[in-house]
């Protein structure tokens, strides 16, 4: 029997101002199994990133329920949500979001430090992950001195260094050319499979469809299509 790691049930998210309420996500349900790579496709403004934020414990749904790694995240305290993000989830962002004054290795090390792993152990683990991702020659570089593809590799290393059960990527190829985008997409898949991390990739880049086990299509906040990709 397969293990469901992410379970999204009837999730709705509204954003309200004084005058208007916008429904960003409307009654969305789906599951992600252990080690499965799920691609969420959809046009801009379809609610992909909002959905990813809720799975990643950064936003909370207005209604519905999300279970991550068996734990119901809706209604969790802020402290527990922070712990979930730190221990169970790895994030990859479109703009890489590396800390500009830290070296490549330090950018990865910091994720370990936040998790209580410090000193030599942190340095060695960060180094190993980066070497695994082909960054051996760039360990002491600052982010400003890296190409877009290299930055995204560092971002993936930072996301994976704590061996999270869940990997969430928001438009990971959005700032990359097609060839680099393909490489980064494949790296995500390789990492997901090696670490058995359930992976959700939000994108409107359908060139990386090949990395997916399952594809969801989101439009106007609603799930329009769910398709399993045969390997």
């Amino acid at each position, binding site marked *: 029997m397969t293990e469901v790691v992410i379970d999204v049930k009837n999730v709705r998210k509204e954003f309200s101002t004084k005058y208007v309420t916008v429904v960003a996500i409307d009654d969305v349900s789906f599951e992600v199994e252990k080690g499965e790579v799920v691609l969420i496709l959809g046009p801009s403004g379809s609610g992909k990133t909002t959905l990813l*934020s809720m799975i990643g414990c950064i936003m909370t749904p207005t209604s519905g329920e999300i279970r991550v790694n068996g734990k119901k995240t809706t209604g969790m305290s802020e402290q527990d949500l922070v712990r979930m993000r730190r221990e169970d989830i790895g994030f990859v962002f479109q703009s890489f979001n590396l800390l500009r004054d830290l070296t490549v290795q330090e950018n990865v090390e910091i994720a370990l430090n936040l998790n209580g792993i410090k000193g030599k152990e942190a340095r060695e683990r960060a180094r190993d992950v980066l070497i695994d991702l082909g960054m051996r020659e760039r360990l002491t570089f600052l982010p400003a001195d890296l190409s877009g593809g290299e930055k995204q590799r560092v971002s993936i290393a930072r996301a994976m260094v704590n061996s999270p059960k869940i990997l969430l990527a928001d438009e990971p190829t959005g700032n990359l050319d097609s060839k680099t985008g393909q490489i980064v997409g494949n790296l995500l898949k390789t990492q997901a499979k090696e670490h058995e991390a359930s992976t959700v990739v939000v994108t409107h880049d359908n060139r990386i469809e090949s990395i997916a086990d399952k594809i969801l299509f989101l439009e106007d906040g609603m799930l329009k299509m769910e398709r399993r990709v045969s390997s």
Partner: protein
Amino acid sequence: MVSIARKNLFQDKRRFLITISGIGASLILVFITMGVFTGSVDNSVTIIDHTHADIWVTQKGVSDLLGVGSVLPGNTLQPLDKIDGVQNYSKLIMSPLAIDVYGSQLKVMVYGYNLSTGVGGPWSMASGNIDDLRQNGTIIVDQSIEAKFGKQLTGDSISVGGIPQKVVGVSRDSKWFTFPVVFTSYENAQKLFGSSSVDPKITEDMANYALVNVKPNYDPLKVSKEISTMNGTDAFITSKIRDNTRHWLIFDSGAAMGLAIGAGVGWVIAAIIVTLTIYTVTIERIPEFGTLKAIGASKKDVYKILLEQVFVSVTLGYTIGVICSFIAAAAIVKSTLLPINIGSDTLILAFFLTLILSILGSLVSARKVNKVDPAIVFRV
């Protein structure tokens, strides 16, 4: 652990240098004002600390050495011999006078004391012999006078209140406020004061204070109470007049308030500089703090970064401040004879007060970071 705080601070080295220089400069103001204050207080009671008297007798209504001048006519002190417990007493007269050293003038405090008891005389000699003061027209000068003029004065003749006096020795650490002290015999001091008309009330047999030693096994406090019953006098045990003198300078003179305001302003400026720097560094890195929060940094982690920034800034600024203050103090003391005593208590207090004020200032940044929505990471 990777220090984000230090990376943040050192990224813009010029700004960081300006920050720690600003903190250092503010603390120089703090240290010098506090040092002048402490030095003045210490100097004001130096004579009390070193006279070896048990009781100070003053004019009625005078309870310290600074607030109101004390004049004791000779006949006022005559009943002292009859007070039970009084072993001996020595008259002390003191007054500021100008000295002339090879054409350069300087104001000094002249102490005239009883050579036979030695009470009120020099307590530490750098050179010369105290007994030489028995010769007519002789004085012992403080070492700071030699330092001020850059000359060795023993054996030289200098003018005190217009009268030539021979320097027979040099004493150490004898100052009264900013004035270096010149010691001479009681009798010689009377001549000097009379000649300068500094205090025309001082005539033969008069004194400013009488310094009493009590017989063994007598309680100085009880004896002092007995002396206080004498006509026209008050009497205080040494520790009491010391406390009274310090109290007057600290609380009654107004000088303390001025110095406290100076030190306070310095502290506030230092804290504002740290606050502004931490705030600027924080604002510049709001997206980075958002990223840290998104990948699992807790509020505690964020506070740690901010506190480390404060600690590093204050520690380096403080170090610069301390070093520069000691250099400045040495230069000021040499050129002005202003007493500056930067004690370890001042140094410790300054560090922690600056740190606490700066930490309070950094709460502004902490509030800003706490409000950062980690969802900021998804905004391109």
